[in-house]
């Protein structure tokens, strides 16, 4: 792997930038592997990367149906935070945030992390009470959180509506939260995994599993059957289909979440601003686009296309908070299929199939968990036992009634 550095960039510049090679190999698929990872999104790539790098697993294949990062890893709004309510969520997501803080160095790839904070706006006295309790819980979990008054918020976000219909009483800020470039995270993990010997196979769709008893012996793909010892399933919006092929069902509903960006402008918005009541979140990317997300569509869908009613309601919410954005042209609007679990927490760990490991159900917030998801899943696969950080997120929690109801507790806007 070519190591990227200032000297390396200057050297290439002097040669007219004609000597750059591909960032990862294009291998031919072998017939047999130690571990097959299904899904070339952030989580799958990170899992393959940590399997090869941290645990020294030599023969790892990563199968991607389309192109790497084509699914939700390239469709999200890049927000990273760890302000979760329950200790199990908090410790997992803060592990992820800490890995993000060192990710550029780890991968030798600039992921453009900008920790400019995330503010959850408060519009009513009741919300203020909840936010105070929430901030206390976050701090008890050892994560940074602070309740700000209106004046402090307006100082950090001067573009906020001066006379909003829903008054801004204050807000909760996590200063270590922020955004990073999602494509860079995908490319960085792909490049790192490939350099450590992982075979990244694109355009290879899984069509079935060969089973013997409660074990998978082979993975049937569009490029033939692969023998393998262990299988990791790290897909979004196909997880119910794949689980069905493996012989079990999941507590997941797949629906649509859309996002959009405006034309790029000079820096006007430093932190990411969320309002759960008005149902919108806004940030500004390093390219200058205002990145907008909001409510999910309510009905089951694999179409990856949001409805206009939601687009309209999200945009009107943005203009309620930031009237000056009404002059901006909307450049792109897109949608991804998101897998929602009953408690809006992910499903990670073992499955009813002995050598199949699952990492799914990320709903609307999987991007922030990519490094920790890969790290803990790689550990889980190697040890055939759940990593301590993800033990509570297992599939069997629904049977035990041990739900992790972050949807209500963490005021997630979905």
């Amino acid at each position: 792997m070519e190591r990227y550095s200032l000297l390396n960039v200057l050297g290439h510049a002097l040669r007219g930038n004609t000597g750059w090679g591909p960032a990862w190999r294009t291998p031919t698929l072998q017939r047999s592997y130690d571990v097959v990872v299904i899904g070339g999104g952030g989580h799958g790539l990170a899992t393959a990367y940590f399997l090869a790098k941290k645990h020294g697993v030599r023969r790892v294949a990563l199968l991607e149906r389309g192109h790497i990062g084509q699914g939700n890893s390239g469709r999200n709004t890049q927000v990273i935070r760890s302000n979760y309510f329950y200790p199990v969520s908090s410790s997992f997501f803060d592990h992820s945030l800490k890995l993000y803080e060192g990710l550029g160095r780890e991968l030798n790839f600039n992921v453009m992390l900008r920790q400019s904070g995330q503010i959850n706006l408060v519009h009513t006295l009741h919300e203020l009470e909840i936010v105070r309790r929430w901030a206390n819980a976050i701090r008890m979990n050892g994560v940074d959180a602070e309740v700000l008054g209106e004046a402090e918020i307006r100082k950090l976000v001067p573009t906020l509506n001066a006379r909003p219909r829903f008054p801004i009483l204050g807000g909760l800020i996590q200063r270590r939260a922020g955004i990073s470039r999602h494509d860079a995270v995908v490319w960085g993990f792909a490049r790192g995994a490939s350099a450590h010997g992982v075979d990244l196979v694109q355009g290879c769709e899984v069509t079935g599993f060969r089973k013997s008893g409660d074990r998978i012996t082979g993975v049937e793909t569009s490029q033939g059957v692969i023998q393998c010892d262990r299988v990791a399933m790290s897909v979004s919006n196909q997880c119910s289909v794949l689980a069905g092929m493996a012989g079990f069902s999941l507590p997941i509903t797949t629906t649509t979440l859309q996002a959009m960006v405006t034309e790029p402008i000079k820096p006007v918005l430093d932190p990411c601003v969320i309002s759960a009541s008005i149902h919108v979140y806004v940030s500004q990317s390093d390219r200058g686009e205002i990145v907008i997300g909001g409510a999910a569509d309510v009905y089951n869908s694999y179409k990856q296309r949001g409805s206009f009613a939601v687009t309209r309601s999200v945009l009107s919410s943005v203009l309620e908070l930031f009237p000056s954005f009404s002059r901006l042209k909307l450049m792109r609007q897109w949608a991804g299929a998101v897998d929602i679990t009953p408690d809006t927490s992910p499903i990670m760990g073992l499955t009813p199939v002995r050598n199949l490991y699952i990492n799914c159900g990320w709903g609307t917030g999987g991007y922030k968990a990519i490094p920790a998801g890969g790290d803990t899943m790689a550990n889980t696969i190697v040890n055939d036992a759940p990593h301590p950080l993800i033990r509570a997120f297992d599939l069997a929690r629904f049977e035990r009634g041990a739900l992790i109801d972050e949807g209500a507790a963490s005021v997630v806007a979905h």
Partner: protein
Amino acid sequence: MLYIPCPFCGPRDDTEFTYGGPSHVKRPELSCNDREWTQYLYHRANTKGPYRERWLHTFGCGRWFNVLRDTTTHEIKQIYRMGEVAPGGESQ
């Protein structure tokens, strides 16, 4: 956006409706074990393709009905009333 033909009021925008999740989910006997109860309570077919679901015409007649809709194209293939036997079988 969906354009849903309510069997009582005719076609309307989906903003008039409330989504009711999958149709024909059968509650098991109360003597069932935890696994069966979990299946009923949380597990969903989450079908990729034709899917039977319930809709409520909240800002219209206020009545429930069943829809057979393809989740990959959003095409509405069939509409039938609550309590009617699903055309083509009740499986998801």
